[in-house]
């Protein structure tokens, strides 16, 4: 029995390692200015989240914000979500707030996904206007890391290696 469990664990580990090794997407990071006062202010917006609460970016001023543009049908986005849930748990008390903006066309799949993945941060349905405010969200995922003063510290285009993101978050907390 013990051997069978070990065999199963090995198979799963091999499959996961193989999947990771053959990932063919990369991310591009664009950093804002080094000095905080020269960084661009993150455009404010107000939306209704999937729990039907008002979601206003500026109401989180004072926290470090990870603003994630994603969609339920986007594979790299989906793979990031469980890691973002972990990050939110790990750094909530130190002032991290993750906000998800889904670029799905309709809210139903977003609500289902939200429940299924036990997402622990607010998620709202985005639109073209908010995409344009942030310089065009013309590919997914795109994540913005925003400092406590509401300024854009970095922009990550594509699925980012979580350890890189975590280091940036820690530097801002």
């Amino acid at each position: 029995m013990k051997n069978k469990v070990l065999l199963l664990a090995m198979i799963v580990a091999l499959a996961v390692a193989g999947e990771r090794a053959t990932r063919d997407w990369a991310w591009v990071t664009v950093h804002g200015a080094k000095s905080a006062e020269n960084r661009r202010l993150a455009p404010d917006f107000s939306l209704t989240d999937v729990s039907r609460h008002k979601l206003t970016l500026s109401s989180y001023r004072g926290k470090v914000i990870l603003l994630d543009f994603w969609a339920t049908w986007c594979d790299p986005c989906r793979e990031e979500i469980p890691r973002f849930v972990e990050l939110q748990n790990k750094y909530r008390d130190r002032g991290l707030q993750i906000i998800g903006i889904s670029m799905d066309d309709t809210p139903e799949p977003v609500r289902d996904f939200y429940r299924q993945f036990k997402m622990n941060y607010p998620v709202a349905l985005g639109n073209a206007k908010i995409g344009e405010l942030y310089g065009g969200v013309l590919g997914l995922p795109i994540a913005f890391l925003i400092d406590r003063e509401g300024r854009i510290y970095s922009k990550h285009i594509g699925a980012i290696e979580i350890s890189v993101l975590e280091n940036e978050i820690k530097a801002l907390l």
Partner: protein
Amino acid sequence: MNHSVVVRTPNLGSIKAMRKLVDRFRLMITAGLLVTSCAFTARAQQTGSSIPSDVLIQPEELVRIVQSAKGPKPLMLQVGSNVLYAQAHIPGSEYAGAAANESGRQQLRKRVENLPRNKPIVIYCGCCPWSHCPNVNPAYQELRGMGFTNVRVLYIANNFGADWVDKGFPIAKGE
């Protein structure tokens, strides 16, 4: 004088155990590779990777067609996200529904059902890296299944922003 001679004979029990271990290890590797390969095949069948290369059209070639004053233009359909389409799309192209979903494929079928089956059609998405786009292959398969014989798929390696907009190719905005 007593000589004690120790003759070391192969321990058949341990050889058998070793063979068993090697066999088990082989089995693990094979099963792992099989699972990985099945997962990739399943994913590839849903993404752009499984579209035949001879039906792909590069962005530069499509730009020439769009900008050319000569000849009829193909019907260009964006088969991805409406939010992305509203921000930027190829001038003259239409939004035809996210083909990853049944509702999107229904919208696509409705748009093309009355067209002659030899109508030149170009579909594109650009939501995600090519090998992870969930929309282009279902749209391509849908059109092929309906009997369309002149369907081409715009190859967008990374996303529409990086491979079209940032290159200065023409765009239009709005629904």
